[in-house]
């Protein structure tokens, strides 16, 4: 199974990446390129939607951590939407749930992001 990516630009500084499928050593480079592209175009807040992801490995975690670090360097954020307990568990057992803000729905993620932007 492959990975499908769809990026939605919420505004000039904010984008949401919807992922569907498997994010692994084969497909994670696509996500990395997408995040780098958003950084290059000036995005400061990126939310990655893992709702339709059914497999995620250490390569994907590495890409997300890399994106988070780069965005934080410019006072930005990289948040996750992850209602799937199986995928969320990977963040929990590795302790990465303390590094990322993980939301159960797009609605909650966008509400929190709006609050952050206004802060």
């Amino acid at each position: 199974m492959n990975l499908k990516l769809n990026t939605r630009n919420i505004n000039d500084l904010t984008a949401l990446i919807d992922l569907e499928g498997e994010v692994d050593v084969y497909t994670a480079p696509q996500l990395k390129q997408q995040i780098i592209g958003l950084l290059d175009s000036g995005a400061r807040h990126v939310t990655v939607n893992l709702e339709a992801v059914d497999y995620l490995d250490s390569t994907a975690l590495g890409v997300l951590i890399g994106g988070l670090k780069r965005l934080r360097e410019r006072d930005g954020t990289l948040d996750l939407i992850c209602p799937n307990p199986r995928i969320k568990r990977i963040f929990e057992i590795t302790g990465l749930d303390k590094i990322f803000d993980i939301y159960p729905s797009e609605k909650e993620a966008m509400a929190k992001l709006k609050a952050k932007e206004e802060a």
Partner: protein
Amino acid sequence: MASETVPSVVELKIPSRPEFVGVARLTILGVASRMPFSYDEVEDIRLAVGEACTTAVGRAKRSNKMDTEITIRSEISDGKLTIKVEDRAGPMPETPPVSDSPAELDEQGLGALLMELLVDEFTVEATPEGGTLVSMVKYSG
């Protein structure tokens, strides 16, 4: 039905390239499903084997040994699934201890951390052939 006391072995060889790691995951999913594991346990095994192959593919790429193969050997016996993932892509860097700051781990470190957390027994050794042998055991019940 094969007797529980006779070990059942499934062996698979894949090229050391990213696009084949999914094949290893699918195979181990089928093997693990032969045992009375829970859904979560089967998923843990799938991820652990995926990580073992991913670290091999990463080392193969860095050492320019992508023409080598990865062998995944799984053995079912008496409530125990033993999986051995062997490559010829050089030694694996030392396994980091479970870290307080996982964000500081690189992908190899995260992969090793996941394998350690997902199976009941996990060992890594360098092979005489210039590769790495990852051994993992998961008990059912």
